[in-house]
């Protein structure tokens, strides 16, 4: 992954717990920073001697203006998010990667579609970008957003969402749901989390006009998995559901993943062949790093897709995969950080 030094030109409050950071993209690299609504960039930070890489969704509206914007919410124990909310100033610089990611709007200008978005917490950032893109791009699409936050102060982009809804009132409906609305507050909206009941109620209250539907989900893993399974139980086809994980959680490895073995890895990395000995239990990425020949990588959680490779020979087991589509997997694409060999010889290509 290629990083660039970008100048911070503004920092503004997006909610009581989140900042919006505006960065300038120098003229000569602007073509590298073209992106789709919903894609993200990585920020590389050095905090107390440690390197930390975090991904943030790009705001939709600044595409091509020579600036990029991200919003960072303070997370408990989130070193990077705390740093980005307290330790940076306008005029300073951040190391930023080129935009990437598979979670972006699939809508085209002439489309007649009903779009359902489910966002929780900072999961709103790519969703907000996708919504802005769709309302402006596709006048015949209708969008319904169910957005979960802890309390009213933590509704990120509240003002912007209200304005957007006023501007596109015939095409955009938004419902907010609060998990900790508090006893003394005046909250009259939905209470609770985005769960099966709330999703079913939401669909019932806002049935689709156009009958071609798409679903965009972003938030914590638990919320995404539950929203996804509810939608599929209701008869939504998997290829209509787009999602992106925001915070990873630890999951017990699948049995198959424990049946990995020592393996000889033949890796073609940008046209150079490497022979690497991989020890049982290691991921392909770990083995390649140890060999001193790592591919590009970033999140090491199966989210960003930076360490994508093509499997030519042999078999692997992937633990988490949030970056590759079914079609990509069918074509033999794997994520090095999540793949452990299940045969004693494999061959991969990375370019």
């Amino acid at each position, binding site marked *: 992954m290629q990083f660039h030094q970008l100048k911070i030109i503004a920092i503004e409050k997006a909610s009581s717990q989140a900042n919006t950071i505006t960065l300038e993209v120098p003229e000569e690299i602007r073509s590298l920073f073209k992106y789709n609504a919903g894609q993200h960039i990585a920020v590389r930070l050095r905090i107390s001697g440690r390197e930390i890489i975090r991904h943030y969704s790009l705001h939709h509206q600044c595409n091509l203006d020579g600036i990029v914007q991200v919003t960072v919410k303070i997370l408990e124990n989130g070193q990077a998010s705390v740093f980005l909310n307290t330790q940076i100033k306008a005029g300073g610089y951040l190391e930023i990667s080129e935009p990437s990611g598979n979670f972006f709007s699939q809508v085209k200008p*002439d*489309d*007649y579609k009903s779009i359902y978005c489910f966002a929780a917490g900072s999961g709103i950032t790519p969703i907000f970008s996708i919504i802005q893109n769709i309302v402006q791009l596709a006048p015949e699409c209708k969008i319904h957003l169910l957005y979960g936050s802890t309390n009213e102060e933590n509704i990120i982009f509240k003002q912007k969402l209200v304005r957007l809804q006023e501007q596109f009132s015939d095409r955009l409906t938004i419902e907010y749901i609060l998990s900790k609305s508090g006893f003394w507050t005046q909250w009259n909206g939905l209470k609770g989390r985005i769960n099966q009941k709330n999703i079913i109620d939401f*669909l019932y209250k806002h049935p689709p006009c156009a009958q071609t*539907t798409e679903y965009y989900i972003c938030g914590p893993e638990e919320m995404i998995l539950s929203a996804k399974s509810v939608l599929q139980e209701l008869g939504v086809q998997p290829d209509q559901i787009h999602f992106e994980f925001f915070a990873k959680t630890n999951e017990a490895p699948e049995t198959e993943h424990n049946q990995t073995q020592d393996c000889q890895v033949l890796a073609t990395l940008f046209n150079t062949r490497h022979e690497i000995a991989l020890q049982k239990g290691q991921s392909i990425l770990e083995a390649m790093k140890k060999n001193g020949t790592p591919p590009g990588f970033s999140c090491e959680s199966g989210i960003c897709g930076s360490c994508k490779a093509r499997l030519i020979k042999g078999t692997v087991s992937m633990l988490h995969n949030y970056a590759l589509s079914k079609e990509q997997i069918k074509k033999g694409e794997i994520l090095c950080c999540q793949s452990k060999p299940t045969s004693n010889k494999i061959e991969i290509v990375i370019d």
Partner: protein
Amino acid sequence: MKLRKMPILPVESYNSQLWFREEQKKIFANTWQYAGLIEDLKNPGDYLTVQCGLQNILVVKGRDQRLRAFHNLCRHRGTQLLRSVGKDKKVITCPYHDWTYDLEGNLISIPERENEFPDIEIAKHHLHKASVDVWRGIIWVHPKPDAQAINQWFAGCEKFLGPHQPEKLVEYPGTTYIKEIKANWKIIVENYIDVYHLSHLHSHTLNMYDHANAQYNFIGDHYLFWEPLSKKYRENLDRLIPYKRIGEVKDQQLGAYVPWLFPSLGLVETESSWSIFHVIPLAPDLTKVVVRSKLEKTSTHEYSQQEYRSQSAWGKIMGNETKYEGGDESDPMASGDFMEEDIFACEQQQKSLDNPLFNVSVSARNQESTIRQFQMIIDKWYNK
């Protein structure tokens, strides 16, 4: 002036079985067809069936609130699966041998499968898919699974329709009108889009609109029409309006929006009602017409009050005369009902087709250009 020659279509197109069947195949099985209003399918499992040319289509609402459309044809021996309309289906079972499909069209059960169909690849017996969509509060179906997108089919039409939001209006009991008319379906459409007849056949029944200032045109294969209110009606609108004024219709938007959406659905969008006018060809010389109307939400009391006020003012201001006064009371021309007048004209025209002297010598330059255009569109589809 070659354009003014009519008919463009031969007489057989209005009375032969051959033309009727070909139209069913070429037009009705290849275009988006009216299937119902969105409120007809409220809950998951609610379904309806509709004939599209030679094919019957079933539409069912899924648990995700989205509609699915399938050909109403069991994959076993072709028996029709569902009849008319119904509620709360969990699965679709064929009455003949109880083959059962889920609401996604997947075959899920075959009686005595182990013995009788040991080798069947069940996934290959999915119901044939059709297309379904919702546009302007109406459920539309198309027999082809890869039909042109409905917004493309109606591209450009929307801005010439009324400001009405049909999904917000309400259908009251007793407002549906069903009639079998002894005429070819195209004669009924031609009557619907005939601007020339409005001031003449309907001189006493549609006098609340100003026909002289009507505006009309075709967009794609669809006919768009609007005419303002007549001066007298507009000046006394509060007293004369038959039902509650539709909220979305602002003063500068008043008028009658009366499009014909090819091939078989008319809309009538006025200051106080919104109706669909669905033409269903049954035979070369027989057509069923279904009219469903929706009104602004109102209480029964308000409704009766309005009706009384309108009726008592109508005679004084607009006049209660009919086209032919006196004589036989059963004469449609004395009925004071524009539907009766139209039905009479259509049935008479159909009868005359058999007369050896029948021909249309000449047609009106402007106000019948719409009929010539419609016939050319039919001709285009017929020769596709």
